[in-house]
């Protein structure tokens, strides 16, 4: 009887040791999530929309009107899509004049994405310091949402009818967006967090077995 109990205790201790081993292997994943999130935030300095004109600066090409991800974020947080303040909002007011629905929708998407990125940083820090690998699952969900939102933002900007209204008959301008780059980075973050989540669920099965 005593040996059975000792055996059970040993098995349980073995399970817990294996679980702890598996979970400790996940320890660095929150740091990766933080790194990816910081890269995402840095990539908001890219032009989320720009109209390139081949006939600027005395015949040389250049960006005619543009705004970065942060300028879109600031416009969304303040509701100032019509502000002429170039430093804070770039040329969002011009885009908003021609295509208000598309500009404001992409602003809202970027605003929510930034909130999610900040949430991932907070949760990952908590996960790393508190050794709570369950938050990898939350990070995976948030990264996936960010990927979708940046991708939708990219599509909305690229397919907006601004060129028809803005360009008139000139064929020297073209619309570009780099919003897809943070989307790709968010996808990498989602993949890493998903991998960590799967490893976490496998580790939990050890305890339940």
């Amino acid at each position, binding site marked *: 009887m005593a040996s059975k109990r000792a055996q059970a205790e040993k098995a349980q201790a073995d399970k817990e040791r294996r679980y702890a081993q598996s979970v400790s292997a996940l320890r660095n994943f929150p740091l990766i999530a933080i790194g990816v999130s910081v890269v995402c935030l840095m990539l908001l300095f890219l032009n989320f929309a720009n109209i390139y*004109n081949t006939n600027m600066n005395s015949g040389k090409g250049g960006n005619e009107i543009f705004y970065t991800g942060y300028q879109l974020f600031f416009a969304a947080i*303040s509701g100032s899509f019509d502000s002429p303040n170039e430093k804070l909002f770039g040329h969002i007011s011009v885009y908003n004049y021609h295509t208000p629905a598309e500009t404001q929708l992409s602003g809202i998407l970027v605003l929510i994405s930034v909130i999610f990125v900040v949430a991932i940083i907070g949760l990952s820090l908590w996960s790393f310091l508190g050794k709570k690998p369950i938050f990898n699952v939350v990070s995976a969900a948030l990264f996936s949402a960010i990927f979708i939102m940046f991708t939708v933002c990219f599509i909305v900007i690229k397919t907006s009818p601004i060129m028809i209204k803005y360009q008139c008959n000139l064929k020297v301008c073209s619309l570009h967006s780099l919003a897809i780059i943070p989307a790709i980075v968010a996808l990498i973050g989602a993949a890493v967090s998903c991998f960590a989540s799967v490893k976490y669920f496998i580790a939990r099965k050890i305890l339940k077995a």
Partner: protein
Amino acid sequence: MKIIGKFFVLFIVSALTFCCFFSACAVNGDIIEEDFFMSMTNIQQYPKNYSDIDIRYDCFTYKLTDINGQDHLCGVRQCSSGFGCTCGNDTIIGFLLEYDGEIPEPRNQSEKSVEKTWVHIEGRLKDTELREIQIYAYTDGKIDYQKKPETVKFLVLTVSEINLINDYQNLKYYVTK
């Protein structure tokens, strides 16, 4: 206690940051030279944002004669017809002026030189409707009747004060984005 103090400082700093941020968002009626094109474009695109504020700017006077022979006095600067293009299709950007007093007569208005009648203007938008004026196209400074008349759109500024600028050498008659 220390933590509460830190949070209080953080709260004050955040509040001040937001105050600065939102004050930067507010539209301003002072049009400076560096932002002339962008500010004028913004006023034309969102006139309702400027309907209750005083607008102040430096410009030169310009006489537009429509296809019916009627003269319209404007306060403008020259610019490219496109937002940032250098296609050579230059135009003017500014307001149609309404003033109880006398608006200084334009001079050298179409010449590529700073030697024009420069004024400092203060006023308010009369309304938020753009006036359409049909003008003949010009070729080499003369009316070209072969070309179709062009339609130009202007907001009307009710001028409350107008002052002649004598020292205009450093002002730009041509503005870009």
